[in-house]
């Protein structure tokens, strides 16, 4: 994108700095935009690395601990026995060598009694784990530093979790869910605004370039969609079940259906501003000499639109896209908040708020953080949009 700008600028501006440099300088002068960009980049990197962070810290966004629901921020919890059992099972499956050694030791030292009637050798390990509950016996093993038994001690150790922002209604870690929610919320925002930019670009370019009946028809649709109350319309569309529409059936997976549906609905209602912007800039460009020249030289409409008009409208487009991200995130949150957007258990900031709303008086932190994140991200995108506006607007550029 910037390269295109670069090329053009060299032709018509005679200055030592390229337009891109000018734009960057201009943008950096906007303090709020600069910091916003930092915040967004940070959040996006964090969201992208969410699985990695989850792996490193050992906290999964889906791991439940229903005995520690609504824990307040900065608390430490122990996972349930269920989780312990699964981890031991996993260990037995993956390290048969070590398991054999441990079983042999348990048997020879008579460390555990079997509790099940039809117990196998593997079951002995579970019974041995139960004896580790006793802190004295645990301590004794730690001091003995037995290599094989250490595996089991490690498992025991990994069951303690720390919750930075507390836990939610199923004892899941709020901080981790917020991080994974960021993937969904920011992801939906970006996707919607890019998709709607493409739709808007096509419609706006066609309307502006071809004019006539096509123009007035497209613009009528755009205007009436713009003037409609969007939320009631979105509610109507959200109530439709995609799975019941015959041809869409195959594309819609059950788990992420709500995400796809939401993106579709949001796209449907957010391309209009872009279309208008593109149309007006195309209208201006159409009369410029270089377009007329291209036309006279016999270039096709497609080529003119794609190689001349689109790159020239990109600046304004960029601003619109950035601001659209913010409003798409807000719309996603609003719909999810009404229970019509992204369905649990997929975490999104909107549906986390919905879940938290019920216990807002008891665990205000649950409501506070998702809302705050939405606010920060949206305001950041808006500031970036503002900064971009300043930098692409030729009037505001100080040369």
């Amino acid at each position: 994108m910037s390269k295109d700008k670069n090329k053009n600028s060299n032709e018509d501006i005679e200055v030592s700095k390229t337009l891109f440099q000018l734009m960057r300088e201009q943008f950096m002068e906007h303090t709020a935009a600069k910091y916003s960009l930092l915040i967004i980049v940070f959040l996006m990197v964090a969201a992208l690395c969410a699985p990695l962070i989850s792996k490193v810290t050992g906290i999964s966004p889906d791991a439940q601990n229903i005995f520690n629901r609504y824990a307040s921020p900065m608390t430490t919890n122990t996972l349930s026995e269920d989780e312990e059992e699964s981890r031991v099972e996993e260990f037995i499956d993956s390290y048969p060598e070590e398991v054999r050694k441990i079983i042999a030791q348990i048997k020879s030292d008579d460390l555990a009694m079997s509790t099940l009637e039809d117990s196998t050798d593997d079951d002995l390990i579970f019974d041995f784990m139960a004896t580790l509950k006793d802190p004295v016996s645990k301590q004794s093993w730690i001091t003995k530093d037995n290599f094989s038994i250490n595996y089991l001690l490690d498992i025991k150790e990994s069951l303690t979790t720390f919750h930075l922002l507390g836990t939610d209604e199923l004892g899941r870690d709020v901080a981790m869910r917020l991080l994974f929610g960021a993937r969904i919320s920011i992801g939906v925002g970006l996707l919607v605004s890019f998709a709607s930019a493409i739709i808007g670009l096509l419609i706006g370019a066609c309307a502006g370039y071809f004019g006539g009946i096509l123009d007035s028809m497209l613009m009528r649709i755009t205007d009436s969609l713009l003037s409609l109350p969007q939320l009631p319309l979105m509610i109507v569309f959200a109530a439709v079940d995609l799975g019941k529409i015959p041809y869409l059936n195959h594309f819609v997976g059950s788990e992420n259906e709500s995400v796809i549906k939401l993106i579709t609905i949001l796209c449907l209602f957010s391309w209009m501003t872009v279309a208008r912007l593109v149309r007006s800039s195309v209208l201006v460009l159409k009369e410029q000499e270089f377009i007329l020249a291209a036309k006279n030289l016999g270039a096709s409409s497609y080529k003119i639109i794609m190689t001349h008009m689109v790159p020239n409208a990109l600046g304004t487009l960029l601003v619109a896209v950035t601001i659209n991200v913010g409003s798409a995130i807000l719309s996603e949150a609003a719909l999810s908040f009404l229970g019509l957007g992204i369905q649990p258990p997929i975490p999104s900031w909107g549906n986390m708020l919905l879940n938290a709303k019920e216990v807002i008086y008891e665990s205000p932190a649950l409501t506070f953080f998702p809302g705050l994140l939405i606010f920060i991200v949206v305001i950041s995108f808006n500031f970036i949009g503002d900064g971009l506006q300043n930098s692409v607007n030729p009037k505001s550029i100080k040369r």
Partner: protein
Amino acid sequence: MRKLILLIQAVFLMQLSMNTAMAKSTNKPTNKILKIGVAQEFENLNPLIMTMLTTTYLYKMANRTLVSMDHKGNWVPQIVKELPSLKNKKAVLKKGGKHGKYIVAHWEILENAKWGDGTPVTGHDVKFAWETAMLDTVTIGEKEVYTQITKIDIDEKNPKKFSFTYEKAKWDFSQLGTFYILPKHLEASVVKKHGKEPSGYEKNSKYTTDATNPGLYNGPYRIKEIKLGSHVELVPNKYFYGEKPKIQKIILRLISDTGTMEANLRSGEIDMISKIGLTFDQALVFEKKAKKNNWPYLAKFKPGLVYEHIDFNLRNEFLKDINVRKALALSVDRDKLTQALFSGRQQKAIHNVAPIDPWYTDNPKEIVLYKHSKRKARKLLKAAGWKINKEDGFRYKNGKRLSFQLMTTSGNRTREQVQSYLQNQWKKIGVEITIKNEPARVYFGETVHKAKYPAMAMYAWISSPENTPRATFHSKSIPSKKNNYSGQNSGGWKNKTVDDLIDKMDLEFNAKRRAEIASKILYHYTNEVPVYPLYYRSDISIIPKNLKGHKMTGTQFSATNTVEDWDLQ
């Protein structure tokens, strides 16, 4: 930016400080006025066409039915003197009719039962209601309670006395909890004028056009003002036959957002929250909080008859296998589930019969119990040929993953929590659960109703005690296009023995032998696990501490059944 953050921090601190702040010192509610919050809409009180839960809650304050159920689950007479039975000779078993045997029952309405304008309630009102309900133009939902009666005779000398002639002999003939009475002196002219137009009666009924007319109500209270979607104001009905109500004004207020319900309670906008109010989670947290801070409210929980369960679709290629179903049943610790999610305030279900039902049994000799053991479950699955794939941790057989779709209503927090919990539990034995939730309208209207869910559907039903499980267990009740989707055996469970037992039960008039048949049915039900029982729901109310005489029921009859006993001391 920094200022902004400071501002946000200030708000946050305020929020936290509120946490420690005491509830606003509201005045204790007195008998002058009681304001009740409800979370769902209500409609006008025409009993024939009302369908909403809130309306039935409200209805019982203003109107009475022939019979009702007390808070212990026994059938009791309400506006009639006594329940007719073969024992007290008020009901007679006769031979003849289409079905070989039929019953005639004699009823008598209480001497001083009057409508709110002083007109006595008589058999004519009962007969008029029955005639109106039978009209084709009335959009009444459940018609069977009326159609089972073929004739109503009124005693010429005493119009308070009348008799019902039933189509066939049935042991539960007197359980007419949903047989409603209409005031003939007000409604007869409406039926005469509009009865022939489709929905003509209900559109022009006095309950719709003149809802504050005292003559429409025979209960302890009458409607003084009703604003749909907002509130109802009730005042005592001076012609009420029973004890004089103590509370002078009751206001029922709709607060559809359960999140702000509590705020309304604590800021004094309402004094109590009805059973149609808080979600379970909210009530639990509220209870804890109220105790800690000594708020003047009491959270009441009453185990009920609503049975939450998962229907397994037995047409599913994996769920066909009984061992898979058993493994699923074994691998969830429902004790832990009810303990952790509900603090033990909702009971674990082991089958469809609730503990307050005389048919209830938890005897391990009679039924199959599934004690939680993931290890046993894993062994069962292994034996059935399902092998764990190390990469994703799920089980596979012939290249197919052991994966099910679990569906339920969207927007129901408790169900979504349970759903997530189950997903997590089953993942631990290598079973993948994908989740799909639909709005109630779609889910019940289409998916469950027509058995369109691919594997599992979580929902609940309420059944009164001693209910023959014909609609849910009998193989003829499997909904299909052929029977126009009637019946609720949506999982498609077919068991010849159970079919026979159900047929046998209908003809069994001895209560003890009926219970024996019931426990035999329960054996097959628990052994084959066509349905996975989860828990019985509890009713929840938040009442002011000084409210006496409020009895939660747990049944479909609400605490408002005895609203005249309520007393704010």
